[in-house]
């Protein structure tokens, strides 16, 4: 049997104080906002993503 460590907190308790976890939790609770955020993320990936589709075949120098 594992003895409880004095002063230890559960994962949930530890994360409850984490601002990132709370922000993400709030986002998950609002599907409309999450949809918009995902949309903006997709647009950003398309616009700011690296060009991997080079069609440039002309090699002058």
């Amino acid at each position: 049997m594992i003895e409880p460590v004095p002063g230890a907190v559960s994962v949930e308790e530890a994360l409850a104080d984490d601002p990132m976890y709370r922000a993400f939790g709030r986002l998950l609770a609002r599907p409309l906002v999450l949809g918009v955020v995902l949309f903006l993320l997709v647009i950003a990936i398309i616009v700011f993503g690296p060009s991997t589709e080079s069609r440039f075949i002309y090699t002058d120098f």
Partner: protein
Amino acid sequence: MRALAPLGLTMLVLVVLLSATDVAIGTWFPRFERFSDNFSAAYLEREVHALARESPQALFIGDSVLWGYKVRPSQSAVSLLRAGGLPARNLAFQGGSPVNLYALLRLMLSEGVHPSTVVFNVNQKEFSPADSAYRTVHPSLNALAGSLFTPGERGLLDQTGPQRSFEHALDSEMTAHWKLYALRSDLREAIFDQVDAVHAADDFVQTLSGAKARGDAAHRPTAAQFEGTYDLSPLDEQNVSLQFLLKSIRLLRHERIRSIAILTPTNHALLHDYIDAPEYRSNLARTRALLEQSGVQVIDLDRAFAPAEFLDNDHLTIAGNRHLAAVLRNVLAR
């Protein structure tokens, strides 16, 4: 199960927003002054469909010389003609060559484009088998016009076999159904004036630090860079570029389209050691004769430009583009 309903709503919002963006792109995506460096098949398709709806106009088809290498889109010769009121479109692109001329003509005619005039440039360096566009169709053009080639024509070209990877299949599906994805390379270049944001940031830093100016100064074209660029072997029927040039002019003649060929301005001062030989003159004369025999009007600009009007072997400076526009304006006005 409780988590599925919000997740479904999230995905619905995402799909609705992406669909709305695609409708907006389909309606408002701009037509550029010329093709981007890295234009997509989707952009080319939009351009061809737009041309099919418009009244006949002069279409300029060719390589980077007509495209306007290293000058702003508005500074290219064709843009200057357009600014002067000539109904024209610049369909030249980097990597143009006779086979690309033929492919683009086939594509346009198959889509119902009927130009009033086709102006194309004939560049002697593209008759060299060493040229990167000698037997290669630009990938975006090939995606649309590849099926229009006969098996015999395809046999003359460099073929990349059908790609069967999952990545390629996914890319094809996304390109077919998602305009934002299909036009991403054109969109990035329109926003950043570079192939992507990283290159734009790099260019900004290089310009700011002066490294770009120093690099340009250190890389002035020298004659030695063009050794082997021009093939002075006598042009014969085996030459792939010559075959596709002949196919192109037969096609134009069959369609009764006014055709003007520009023998590309060439920097003889720079290339003197490599091209100022009877063989070069003989190949140029042969090309000219073949064009004229087929009813193509020829503008011989091979020696018409001063060395100061060139950036390198054949690409023109801003002043060179102005000179070219003036020559073409006179010819097209007749």
